[in-house]
């Protein structure tokens, strides 16, 4: 295809990915998407990894500026620490996109996997399966931005459905998260054996809850609804008699690809729009079983909406090989 400038000579284009979070499947999948799309474009990708150090992340933006990159993707982080750094980058004439962190800058497109939509899809399924009055346990750790946004939806859904009774709220980020959450969920289940829905809007939480439900022998009485997905989650949802009924997810790899494509559009002088939203997909246990999906790759093949998002795809844009 006829490539717009500067992608007619993509080897000269340098972009940087500045990460806040990196440990875990979601972030690895996101990174692989970024890498795949960067490769398809033929640009030089540099990765800065701040390992959950927000201050360092801001410095890394400066470092990228000093390195003379053309574009920067900011992946997660805190508004307060990234705002100025992002502005400095923009001022230096660098194109910037931000994923899942609001850097409060009109020049910077925000890539989002809509957390509110994620929670909404999962909860709609929960209401569809269990009616609009049930006894719920909720897993939540405040202070984590995506979880806080998912929480907003949960609060709203509870308000709209007075029949939903939340009897327990718990959660921890102690590592390994699934193990610690399993311990808590076991306690919760023995204190509230009448719980029939567990809303665990993060797959690490859901894993833990599922372990607890299995150990308590309550798989047939409790249903788990969550957000996010991975190969291991698919296995877990498909176990015979699994309590994990549905999860809503965007494909992190797709989000990674969209991030790079949006940045590329900016570099080529096009506008991807200020809010670039990657729509989530609802994945139910039934669907996985019916389509016999065993891993993320198959999920992508058999549920096309999950494999590719038709977002930020101008005609000239090369897509990664599948």
């Amino acid at each position, binding site marked *: 295809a006829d490539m717009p400038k500067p992608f007619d000579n993509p080897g000269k284009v340098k972009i940087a990915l500045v990460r806040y979070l990196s440990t875990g499947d979601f972030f690895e999948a996101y990174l692989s998407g970024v890498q795949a799309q960067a490769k398809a474009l033929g640009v030089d990708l540099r990765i800065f990894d701040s390992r959950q150090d927000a201050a360092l992340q801001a410095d890394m933006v400066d470092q990228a500026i000093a390195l003379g990159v053309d574009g920067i993707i900011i992946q997660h982080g805190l508004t307060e620490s990234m705002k100025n750094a992002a502005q400095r980058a923009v001022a230096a004439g660098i194109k910037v996109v931000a994923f899942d962190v609001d850097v409060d800058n009109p020049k910077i497109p925000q890539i989002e996997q809509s957390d509110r939509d994620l929670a909404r899809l999962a909860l709609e399924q929960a209401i569809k399966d269990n009616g609009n009055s049930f006894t719920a346990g909720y897993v939540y750790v405040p202070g984590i931005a995506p979880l806080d946004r998912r929480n907003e939806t949960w609060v709203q859904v509870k308000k709209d459905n007075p029949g939903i009774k939340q009897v327990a*709220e718990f959660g921890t980020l102690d*590592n*390994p998260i699934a193990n610690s959450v399993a311990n808590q969920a*076991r306690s919760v289940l023995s204190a509230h054996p009448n719980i029939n829905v567990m809303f665990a809007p993060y797959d690490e939480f859901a894993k833990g809850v599922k372990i607890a439900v299995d150990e308590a022998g309550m798989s047939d009485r409790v249903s788990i609804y969550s957000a996010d997905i991975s190969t291991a989650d698919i296995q877990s949802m498909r176990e015979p008699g699994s309590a994990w009924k549905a999860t809503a997810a965007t494909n992190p790899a797709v989000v990674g690809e969209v991030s790079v494509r949006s940045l590329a559009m900016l570099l080529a002088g096009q506008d991807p729009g200020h809010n670039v939203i990657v729509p989530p997909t609802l994945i139910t246990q039934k669907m996985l079983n019916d389509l016999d999906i*065993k891993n993320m790759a198959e999920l992508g093949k058999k549920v096309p909406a999950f494999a590719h998002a038709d977002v930020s795809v101008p005609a000239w844009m090369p897509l990664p090989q599948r």
Partner: protein
Amino acid sequence: MTQGSTLIDIAIKYGFLALMAGLIAFFGTMADGFLTPFSAVFILQSVAITGILALGVTATLVVGGFDLSIGAVATSALMLSAYVMVVWEQSAVTAVLLCLAMGAVVGLVNGLLIVKMKVPDLLATLGMMFLLVGLQRIPTQGRSISTGMTLSDGDVAKGHFSETFLMLGRHRVDFFAPNLVPLSVIFLVVIAVGVWLFLELTRHGRLMYAIGSNAQAASLAGTNVDRYKILAYMISGTLASFGGVLLAARLGRGDVASGNNLLLDSVAAALIGFAVLGASKPNAFGTAVGALFVGILLQGLTMMNAPYYTQDFVKGAVLVVALVFTFALSGRGGRGRG
């Protein structure tokens, strides 16, 4: 030459256990279903892994050392067992044996660094910790391991966690009630009794205590100090890797996780053990009680719907109070530096 009245002695000796009994009574009245065999077994299960790690760290404390790498060893074993079964498609037995061997080798390396290279123990095991945290993620580029995952060469992993392996973490044995006691609890009890027997009643345990108290004197009396120190780190490494195996069996997948919380919780259990029965020194019984204590506290608080941060707070507060009580009363401070 004990000084002071027997009353204080009794307070020192049984104060901590009394505190624990009080806690149980409190939760028993406040939280429904706390005082059931089901709940008791569950508490044991929730502390099984930390407890096993803590018993290992106790062995290193006894010889005057400290093992900061146990958390990383456990998560390495978690990843390794998953890798062996899922990617290499090997049996449960192979996976367990390889993990235990890995733990023993890590312990051996720790021990050699400390006794032969004279690297201070905190340093050597801290280095080992970082090393393992990185190493365990390299084969999968930082991703979790589960059946169906795509490998770096594009293939799909076809192996899976064998039933035998999962049983380690999930099988329940009939005891009073049918299907009551999980295997992991039995492992905890067996290992605790084993470590206790070894440290308290055998020649080797006695010599290890001697080394922890005065390595120079022990050496001059003909003890092979180096060998026992290495042994302690190997016990620690092996138990930590076994803890990791149980973790893998419970999770049923190779989750990437830092072992930091495992480390801190086990260290807390082992250190609380100092306060049990007025021992003022590392001891297996105390460690087991310490692990149990933390388990009871967390179970009770969770059942009372306390948010996670109050749990940390209460854990800290109770720990401090219990310790002040024991150490201020006994007034000697024991082997201070843990």
